[in-house]
């Protein structure tokens, strides 16, 4: 089970690298589902461990894509740090105390989508200003943020379904 999860995680990471390297839709659109991958990591992981995994994942994406080394790392670490608070905010503290992983089937699509939106927004709130480095206008960054959050959240919702544990299905 665990091996299957790790395998899926690595496959998704590889897809993210390929997407980041090859998919250039527009300067306004960034497709990134790293936040949902961090969000979907097992709830039993402590925050420092979570941050180390996030660091390694983002570093791999930065390293294998044409992007700047450290950009995804910089943006993903706050998501990892805030993951437990975010889960508590959206799903309540019960999920943490039961140590249940996030699942669309069990927690419902709305809540999962809300958590994805928050995590993705947090990610792009760091990613876009650092990427623009003060060279773009605020309006450009706002549009880029809105479009990227919308597109990435939609992709992330699908990724959340792929990463969700099978035994967590609500009706099983």
């Amino acid at each position, binding site marked *: 089970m665990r091996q299957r999860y790790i395998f899926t995680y690595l496959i998704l990471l590889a897809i993210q690298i390929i997407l980041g390297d090859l998919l250039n839709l527009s300067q306004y659109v960034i497709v990134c589902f790293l936040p949902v991958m961090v969000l979907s990591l097992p709830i039993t992981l402590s*925050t420092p461990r979570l941050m180390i995994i996030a660091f390694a994942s983002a570093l791999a994406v930065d390293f294998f894509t044409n992007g700047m080394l450290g950009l995804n790392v910089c943006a993903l670490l706050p998501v990892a740090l805030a993951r437990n608070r975010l889960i508590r905010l959206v799903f309540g503290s019960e999920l943490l105390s039961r140590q249940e992983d996030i699942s669309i089937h069990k927690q419902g699509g709305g809540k999962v989508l809300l958590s994805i939106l928050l995590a993705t927004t947090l990610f792009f709130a760091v990613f876009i200003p650092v990427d623009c480095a003060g060279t773009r206008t605020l309006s450009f960054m706002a549009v880029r943020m809105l479009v990227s959050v919308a597109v990435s959240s939609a992709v992330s919702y699908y990724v959340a379904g792929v990463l969700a544990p099978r035994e967590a299905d609500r009706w099983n």
Partner: protein
Amino acid sequence: MAVERKRFGSGILSAAVFVALEIAAIIMLNHSSSLQNIWINRASHRVHAIIWSAGENIRNYFTLDKQNKVLAAENIELSSMVREFGQRDLSYRENHFYDTKLGHFKMIPATIVKASRNTQHNYIILNKGSEDGVKPQTGIVTTSGVIGVVNSVGKHFSYGITLMNPRMSVSARIGFTGMVAPLEWDGCNTDGAIMRGLPLHQQINPGDTVWTSGFSSVFPADIPIGVTGRIRQVDGSTNEVSVKLFQDFSALRYVIITENLDRVEISELEKEAEK
């Protein structure tokens, strides 16, 4: 309690790991792109500036007491300097009048202690009295005109009536070689006077300078008093000229008391001639 302590410890550890990894990410970013390098350096300088300025503010706050003492001492020193310069300025202004040559006149500089300007019978009190050599019936002038006459003298102060008084009249001349007539206050303005009884056949031009004639034994000759203004015919027999005084009585502080040294001799001569 133990759970809380564990949670606190875990929070600290998370924060420390986050800071360490974020610093590592920023270092990587700093080295990977020159644009980001500039941006990060700029941000870092801004943070440095904020930290240094905050530190400086804190340090300043704790040295306020010391600075206050220094400022108080400096304030005292400056105040004494201002007073000293004020005294020098006063004596300069008073002494400045000694340089003016006004014939056989003894001049005593004085400062106005009190002056009335709002009544019909205005007066001034000067800071010089008999001990300073001031005598009654001596003139009070400035370099800009005639002010009044000393009426009575105390030990340290003198009382005089000003030109802004119906009892006061000055012998004045229009132009250097023009007509001589008495000049009196117009009763309204602090810088207005009237010359009455001027013959009709003499031409008077508005803007002519009015001087002291020197015909009285009180005021020296040729002190500029003002300029002529509107000319009006009175009863078809004489002209009346308004004069705008150079010296505005509302802006008056330093004066000269003028004593004619030949006055006694002139008086005796007049008395002898009357016999």
